[in-house]
């Protein structure tokens, strides 16, 4: 029979749904940490827990105070952006008790490749080596000073720094072209690459030297009419010169 005119079905379901909602409320009370939501959608106590963690890193300013003779050349080198503790490890204890805790220094061959081993996602121009091929067995420090990592000699090939481009070009239709066919490379670029940049073509007529209708190149080289093809766009707006996909 109905209670207060409410059908029994509704009463039974209301009872079940009340239990489910009550269980959810109890679960919220039990499982949600009290500090949740104080600052945002996370547990506020987590901030205090992070603050309470032991400090391991001293920061490079602490290193400079005593080791300025290393800091000065390093500040002018390619490693100026690399903090001391990146290689030497956390040194907060060393700052507090310099003689008791001496931070280590990686001298084995495996450490430098963490940054300098070839990886296609690294930015172009970043010096990269293929560890297995690059002076096998020798420790990096034999030839390179990590505090002023100048190269022992000028790279013989562009791929020493531009390996990603070199690898891409190697499987492209432009594989047989030397880099200097398109790029003008000042001598200074080999010593101070960031201060004397290599130049790339700026006009579409440059590509036309090989690809224009009347160009004096092999018959298998794709030809276009520079007047009508691509209109006002530059060639490299559509074609990636290191791996031109058009045939």
């Amino acid at each position, binding site marked *: 029979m109905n209670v207060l005119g409410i*059908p029994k079905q509704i009463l039974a379901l209301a009872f079940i749904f009340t239990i489910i909602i009550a269980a959810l409320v109890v679960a919220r009370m039990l499982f949600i940490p009290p500090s949740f939501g104080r600052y945002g959608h996370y547990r506020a106590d987590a901030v205090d827990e992070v603050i309470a963690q032991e400090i391991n890193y001293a920061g490079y300013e602490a290193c400079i105070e005593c080791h300025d003779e290393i800091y000065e050349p390093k500040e002018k080198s390619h490693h100026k952006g690399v903090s001391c503790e990146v290689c030497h490890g956390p040194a907060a204890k060393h700052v507090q008790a310099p003689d008791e805790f001496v931070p280590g220094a990686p001298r084995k061959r495996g450490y430098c490749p963490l940054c300098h081993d070839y990886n296609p996602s690294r930015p172009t121009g970043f010096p990269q080596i*293929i560890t297995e091929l690059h002076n096998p067995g020798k420790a990096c420090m034999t030839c390179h000073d990590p505090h002023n990592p100048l190269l022992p000699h000028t790279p013989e090939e562009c791929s020493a720094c531009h390996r990603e481009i070199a690898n891409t070009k190697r499987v492209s239709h432009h594989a047989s072209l030397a880099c200097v066919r398109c790029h003008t490379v000042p001598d200074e670029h080999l010593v101070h690459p960031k201060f004397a940049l290599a130049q790339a073509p700026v006009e579409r007529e440059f590509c036309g030297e090989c690809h224009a209708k009347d160009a004096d190149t092999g018959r298998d080289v794709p030809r276009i009419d520079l007047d009508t093809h691509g209109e006002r766009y530059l060639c490299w707006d559509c074609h990636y010169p290191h791996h031109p996909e058009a045939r």
Partner: protein
Amino acid sequence: MVTNIMTGLQNISGYIYPNEFELHWGILIVVYPYLTGLVAGAFILASLERVFNVKVLQPVYRLSLLSALAFLFVAPLPLLVHLGHPERSFEMFLTPYTSSAMAMFGFVYAWYLMVVLLLEIWFDYRKDMVIWSKEKRGLMRFVYRILPLGVTDVSEKSILFDNKIGRIITIIGIPSAFLLHGYVGFIFGSVKANPWWSSVLMPIVFLFSAIVSGIALILIIYMVTTMFRLKTMSMPCLNKLAEFLLYAIIVDLSLESLDFIQRLYESEESIKILSEMISSRLFLSLIVSQVILGSIVPMVSLVWARFGRLPDEMRRMAYFIAAILVQVGIFSTRWNVVIGGQLFSKSLRGLTVYKMQLFGLEGLLMTGFLLILPLIILYLLSKLLPPWPDSEAKVQYSQAGDHGLR
């Protein structure tokens, strides 16, 4: 390492970014919209009988509801398996994060399961469960005593009330089913950076393809179960299912063509790489499987079988093959959306490939298991709550007009 890179480079074409080499969303994420689509489609089919009074579909009404429930139980599993930490999904309910569309799925799912499907099935089966609790013996008698939640009144008035509420729930259920599957399309459609996904038509296209797959699924399940039960299939019901399937395919194909034509006409900067992807990587799954085998062939065979002069056996065979092809086509649709959206580089210059695992949590075997699991659940559900028209319990009222059972 060089060898690995060179081997990898052979699988890609053009230029891709290094982090696009491997796809993050694999076949499990293909299965997820496929399953939710089946749920939404099956429920919308059930609503045709209930709300729109298409009485000829009565033999598949309960079957549609139970199928929707069985597939709904499995729908979130591909996501949980893909994420690797299923226990963390519980936190979504404890601390709801309203600005995350993915987190809100938990609530859409819970609403659909608890408020729509379970309630509708409960109201629809309550009378039967009360009667079975008196007829059955042993464990099943005990189960049927618990399930009606103590509401044993099977008077005419009470059953009328059940029907009325069931109808109201179905009316609420239709927009809910739209929400459930429209949501899945919404997730893909709102990825602005991906030209293959970013389209306002995405939720609508998902919805109509869901209706197509749901109707085809019920057609297959109805034919197979009736055959194994050695019963006669209701030809008017099958004809009506085939008609609705045909109309749904026409609308779905029109919408997808509209989307495609608009993309071609807009001809944004992505059109070149997308055309290349369709003509190379997706040729089999899109042109052959989705468009030809999954849409055009079923459409033609349904028109031929439904409106041609054919013997019933032939007609049934044509319906069955069309429905199977539709399933293949809709699975390909999900594949083309999920996998296709990750095959081209955001640089719009190159294409990668998807390499599927066989074993492992995200492999082919797990996918097979997740596709078979709903059918096992449906079998168990059909043992508990037989959806067949001939097994519906009949109430016999005494002449004195009392509201009890004889």
